[in-house]
């Protein structure tokens, strides 16, 4: 499984770019907006899967880096006139730096304590977004101008969607490359057995720190993408509710596999839209439905939808 990319792994990103360029001809603005939301979810979930599904570590701070990415690109663009692509790169470097510091501070922690430290970091970041009014606009949020793409300004839903599709393709390709790299191998090793990994000479702490930094960089890119197609961001985008939604995506789809993560983020991402049109006045129960889905999928399909599909096909194959 390690080494060079398989055919499908090279073809998927290409397919996404082509589909992303063509779809706007057939979809209306609402569908394109929803498409953008789903694309951001996929990138966020792919990133969270790097630390949780691939390296086997729990981290709740993903949402904080999503916020850092969004605010950093937005502020760089609005206040300093930095074009989006350059702003995004700066934001990713900034996030990676912060993530490295968080990782260094928490490498000594294990199990539940590491998880708690990341929860604390997420809360702190959210608090900062709310209270640092001069920079983030506080609870009033930030109004966003159309994104400057150096060669053009992205004003329509169609162009926003195309930009996001291209970023998604790149992030997906990077994900495949990471999984097949030496680092990806080391991550899988510490997920399966930290003890064996360390007596085999794998630097467990460093591998975990790298997984955390890369995962956080994905969240940051997701945040930057949010800035492309939204005209407004506020701290409510980065609360515990979306953090839990992200976890649900991984659990429902199936951690540790790209297909599972994509299935999970698409299903859980589109669910609010379905609930909104079908539940009517019962929409206040939305969070309850998420919780129910989470509990049911943990008990009924611990490996997610993709795990279920894989088991079915494997048992069919062995039956014939």
């Amino acid at each position, binding site marked *: 499984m390690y080494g060079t990319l398989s055919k499908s792994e090279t073809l998927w990103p290409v397919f996404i770019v082509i589909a992303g360029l063509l779809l706007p001809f057939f979809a209306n603005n609402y569908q394109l907006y929803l498409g953008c939301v789903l694309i951001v979810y996929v990138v966020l979930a792919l990133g969270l899967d790097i630390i949780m599904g691939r390296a086997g570590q729990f981290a709740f701070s993903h949402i904080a880096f999503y916020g850092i990415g969004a605010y950093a690109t937005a502020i760089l663009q609005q206040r300093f006139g930095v074009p989006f692509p350059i702003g995004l790169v700066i934001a990713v470097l900034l996030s990676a730096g912060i993530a490295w510091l968080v990782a260094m501070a928490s490498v000594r922690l294990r199990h539940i304590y590491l998880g708690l430290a990341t929860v604390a970091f997420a809360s702190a970041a959210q608090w900062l977004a709310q209270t640092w009014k001069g920079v983030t606009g506080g609870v009033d949020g930030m109004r966003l101008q159309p994104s400057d793409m150096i060669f053009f300004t992205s004003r329509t839903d169609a162009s926003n969607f195309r930009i996001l599709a291209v970023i998604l393709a790149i992030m997906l390709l990077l994900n495949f490359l990471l999984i097949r790299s030496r680092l990806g191998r*080391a991550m899988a*090793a510490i997920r399966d057995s930290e003890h064996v990994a360390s*007596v*085999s000479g794998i630097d*467990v702490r460093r591998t975990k720190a790298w997984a955390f930094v890369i995962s956080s960089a994905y969240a940051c890119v997701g945040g930057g993408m949010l800035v492309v197609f939204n005209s407004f961001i506020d701290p409510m985008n980065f609360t515990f509710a979306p953090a839990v939604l992200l976890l649900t995506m991984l659990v429902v789809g199936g951690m540790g596999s790209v297909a599972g993560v994509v299935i999970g983020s698409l299903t859980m991402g589109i669910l609010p839209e379905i609930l909104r049109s079908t539940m009517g006045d019962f929409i206040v129960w939305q969070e309850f439905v998420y919780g129910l889905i989470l509990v049911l999928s943990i008990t009924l399909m611990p490996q997610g939808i993709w795990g279920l599909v894989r088991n079915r096909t494997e048992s069919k194959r062995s039956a014939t």
Partner: protein
Amino acid sequence: MLKLDNISAGYGAVSALEGVSLEIADGQMVCLLGANGAGKSTTLNCISGVVPLRGGQILLDGAPLAGIKAEEIVRRGIAQVPEGRETYPGMSVHDNLVLGGWVHRRKRSLIRDELDKVYALFPRLKEREQQHAGLLSGGEQQMLMIGRALMSQPRILLMDEPSLGLSPVLVERLFETIVQLNRDGLTILIVEQNAQLALRVSQYGYILENGEMATHGNSDTLRRDPKVREAYLGT
């Protein structure tokens, strides 16, 4: 030569080892015996640098290993075969082995040569190259774990209860391989519950009791020692 000089170690408030000393000369096969919880695995993990020392020191050819990262210890030639079925179950046999050669990850040709050597030693693993490690039988998993440790080209191999959970026939066969590895020049420190077998194949033995060294001596002498016979050999 590997030397443990008066080492102590523990977990939290619990002390697992108290002033344990042990010596292994190059090319020797030494066994470490003792009941459950006597501190055998802790001793191996101290050598591997996974469990920190609370006192004493470990010397490899006279150079202290304390404070050195586990990675560097593997690089200096000490590999461990952990207890139980500790494979990477979701990965193929091939990937498990390649990961064992992690410290040589930048030398591709060396990894390939080592891989060939391991497959020559355990042809069974070659047959199962692309299978998930979790689907192997107990004996095959043990072979895989030994093969994985050999991938780092160790001088000293630490083995933690390789006979655990294997049928007597498989244990016999496995130990033939271990003896062969030792004859080919590999220094081996083997932890075993099966004291009879361990004392038969090794040249020297140590016996741990409650985290302290109870006795040690030539394996043949230990096998004839009435106290050892009563406590560990069941006769």
